[in-house]
């Protein structure tokens, strides 16, 4: 199993939101709506949306980073032209969201939201700042490891994925019930790698992270 279960009591919000019935396995139906998915036009996404450091009057505070990788299908084939959306806290660990009460500073030069379409080889690339860790109220002294939220479409609605990318070697991993909800062997798939080939000398550290989408039902395994 790759995906976490719905019910993971260490993550308290799952207790009243996890369905109690297992999902019903659907028959293979080549006409099912879920085997197709939305198509995104190049003109619908501004190339500047991939640079999260560019939206303000000045540069955001924090460690500038490049995050790049490929979106792949279950057979390892790149998925071109698909929408990738990201959002994150700023370098101080604060989201530009009205309900984030963490008493850390907002950064007027950083919203923390970006999006892009993958290129012909399935690649995405964002420029941003490294997000900070932040406290949450799940349990006493609960802190989330630094992460960037990712939303990926793929070619079928069945492939739709929302997940989180983490940074290598974070000492908070072993205390985080959200990361630990993922079965052990699969957790490493959520951790990016520092990559000097992605790093831009004298400018920004680079992290590489590939996303592998699930099988579509009519696809040969």
């Amino acid at each position, binding site marked *: 199993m790759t995906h976490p279960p719905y019910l993971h009591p260490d993550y308290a919000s*799952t207790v009243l939101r996890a369905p109690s019935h297992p999902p019903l396995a659907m028959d293979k139906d080549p006409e099912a709506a879920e085997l197709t998915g939305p198509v995104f036009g190049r003109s619908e996404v501004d190339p500047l949306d991939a640079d999260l450091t560019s939206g303000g009057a000045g540069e955001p505070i924090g460690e500038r980073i490049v995050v790049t990788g490929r979106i792949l299908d279950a057979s390892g084939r790149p998925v071109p032209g698909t929408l990738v959306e990201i959002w994150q806290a700023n370098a101080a660990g604060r989201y530009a969201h009205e309900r984030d009460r963490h008493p850390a500073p907002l950064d007027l030069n950083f919203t923390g939201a970006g999006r892009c379409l993958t290129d012909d080889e399935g690649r995405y690339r964002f420029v941003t700042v490294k997000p900070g860790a932040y406290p949450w109220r799940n349990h006493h002294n609960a802190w989330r490891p630094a992460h960037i*939220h990712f939303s990926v479409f793929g070619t079928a609605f069945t492939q739709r994925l929302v997940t989180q990318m983490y940074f290598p070697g974070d000492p908070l991993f072993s205390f985080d019930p959200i990361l630990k909800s993922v*079965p052990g062997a699969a957790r490493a798939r*959520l951790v990016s790698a520092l990559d000097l080939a992605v790093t831009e000398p004298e400018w920004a550290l680079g992290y590489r992270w590939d996303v592998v989408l699930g099988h579509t039902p009519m696809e040969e395994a």
Partner: protein
Amino acid sequence: MTTPSQTVGPFFGFALPYPGDWELVPEGHPGAVTITGRVLDGAGEPVPDALLELWTGDPGDRGALGRAGAGVSGFGRCGTAPDGSYRFRTAPPARAYLALLVFARGLLKPVRTRVYLAGVPGPPLDALDPARRATLLARREGQDVYRFDVRLQGEEETVFLEF
């Protein structure tokens, strides 16, 4: 190995919603229908921080993100309001149903279901206990309005699907 899912969390609201996201067709589109309802948790309380995505199965001729102009899009997105409510305006689907995905804080992976507007769900849904099957049927409330609540857990839990 497939990349594991993680929760959308509580703070997607400044990133994922976009102007006109819930409007697959513009106001006044001939034959348009509105799907509305609430997302509820196992205690029957509204879920004010869910994100729903609707997919008709047909990309159409209107942008999935760019909502300017006329036409029909097959994709919509709607974050729930403080009372757990959502809405979509869509063209009548070619199929008997619309595909629906729900993301939320506390959902480590999304739940997916179908909103049946007309007709009786075919196999394997027709083999469900009638009370459970009824959770997939939208209730017509007006000429162009259908109600469909999503109950994540509990006695009237919505039937969720896996492909």
